[in-house]
């Protein structure tokens, strides 16, 4: 009964989100985000059909859909990157480098694991592989947040909502998958409830249009190295002061 309630409420929220997205034309602004939701809705209906009429097919199909969902979910991060940093080439470049570093580290870890004979990373089960992918996503979210906060990138309610929903879902998934691999049993409700919670956040954040912020491009005339040397020049009195405190 509880499974049915969680499942149906998730689908209703998904449909609500999509309908509202079409009504307000958010689909054009966040095409990847809404593609992800179309995929999740179709996947959910397909799995329901398989569960009812071809139960033997359900398990392998579930895992396949789950991994496709994770990969498509990563596109949400790309969407955030594209929408939030599109007008800020300097910050976008910094974010690309930071994300590149995160993915390079993940790849290096995977290769090291492989060289020790592990199947993929030190993962023995599908749940572990999923957990590892979620961990990489968590690091990517952290990297994006750090860059956006450090560079004071304006974030509207929509972006904050998308970020909060997906971030919370990833964090709860990491916890759930960690526990399930440690105890050897699955906590299916946790994952479904976490996703429904994320859907609620998305629905609330994307329900109404946000005030479009007037974009004032304050592009500096100097190149980046000039900006760096100007910052260093501005820092010089402070540095000299601190050095003075050191008695030099």
């Amino acid at each position: 009964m509880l499974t049915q309630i969680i499942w149906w409420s998730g689908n209703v929220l998904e449909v609500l989100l999509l309908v509202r997205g079409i009504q307000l034309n958010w689909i054009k602004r966040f095409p990847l985000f809404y593609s992800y939701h179309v995929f999740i809705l179709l996947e959910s209906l397909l799995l329901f059909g398989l569960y009812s009429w071809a139960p033997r097919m359900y398990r392998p199909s579930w895992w396949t859909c789950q991994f496709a969902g994770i990969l498509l979910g990563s596109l949400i991060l790309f969407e955030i990157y594209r929408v939030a940093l599109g007008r800020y080439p300097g910050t976008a470049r910094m974010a690309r480098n930071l994300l590149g570093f995160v993915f390079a580290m993940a790849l290096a870890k995977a290769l090291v694991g492989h060289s020790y004979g592990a199947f993929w990373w030190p993962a023995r089960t599908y749940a572990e592989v999923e957990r590892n992918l979620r961990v990489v996503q968590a690091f990517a979210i952290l990297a994006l947040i750090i860059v956006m906060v450090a560079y004071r990138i304006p974030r509207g309610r929509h972006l904050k909502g998308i970020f909060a929903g997906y971030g919370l879902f990833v964090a709860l998934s990491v916890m759930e998958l960690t526990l399930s691999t440690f105890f050897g049993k699955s906590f299916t409700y946790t994952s479904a409830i976490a996703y429904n919670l994320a859907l609620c956040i998305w629905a609330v954040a994307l329900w109404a249009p946000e005030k479009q912020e007037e974009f004032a491009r304050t592009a500096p005339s100097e190149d980046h190295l000039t900006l760096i040397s100007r910052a260093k020049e501005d820092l010089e009195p402070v540095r000299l002061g601190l050095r003075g405190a050191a008695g030099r």
Partner: protein
Amino acid sequence: MNLVILLFVLAAVLVGTLLYFLRVKDRPAIAENAEAGSLNAQAAKAARHGDLQFLGDAIFSKGDWDFIRGEDSPLLTELFREERRGLAARWLNHSAERIRSIREDHLRNSRFSQDLDVLAEVKLLGLFVYLITLCRCMSLVVRVAEPTAPRTLALHFEKMAGRLAPEQGAVVSPLPAEEFRRSHS
């Protein structure tokens, strides 16, 4: 078990960072122009005056401390210590604020850079972090130890950061605080 704890910590950090991300307010894009301009003007003014250098040298002067100790008056020593402690704390807070405003000004401008040099940017961010950490540590030391103790700490930091090259040190005037005072009057 260690991995479980580590991943739980990661998830907690992610949730905490998300909450912080949601709480930090957006700054209006248009207001940024005026703000950035005023920050630049402030920084330029400060750079002209060179107050920070003079005050830093005066507040942490070992000469003053030796002189007061030479008077052999516990009351005077205590008075001096309290006065210098307050001054040093305010000066260090002011320095940290100045560094922060320069950092914000720089980040605001470099967001738009088409030719952002990632390595140079990271180095500069490291310098900001280093200087702010130095200020914070010195503030802490001022509160718990002698007002001249940050001298040792600052020297230690400078050594750690490899900033004690003779040619770099020569940039700073070796004049004692008394000489500065005279030159300012």
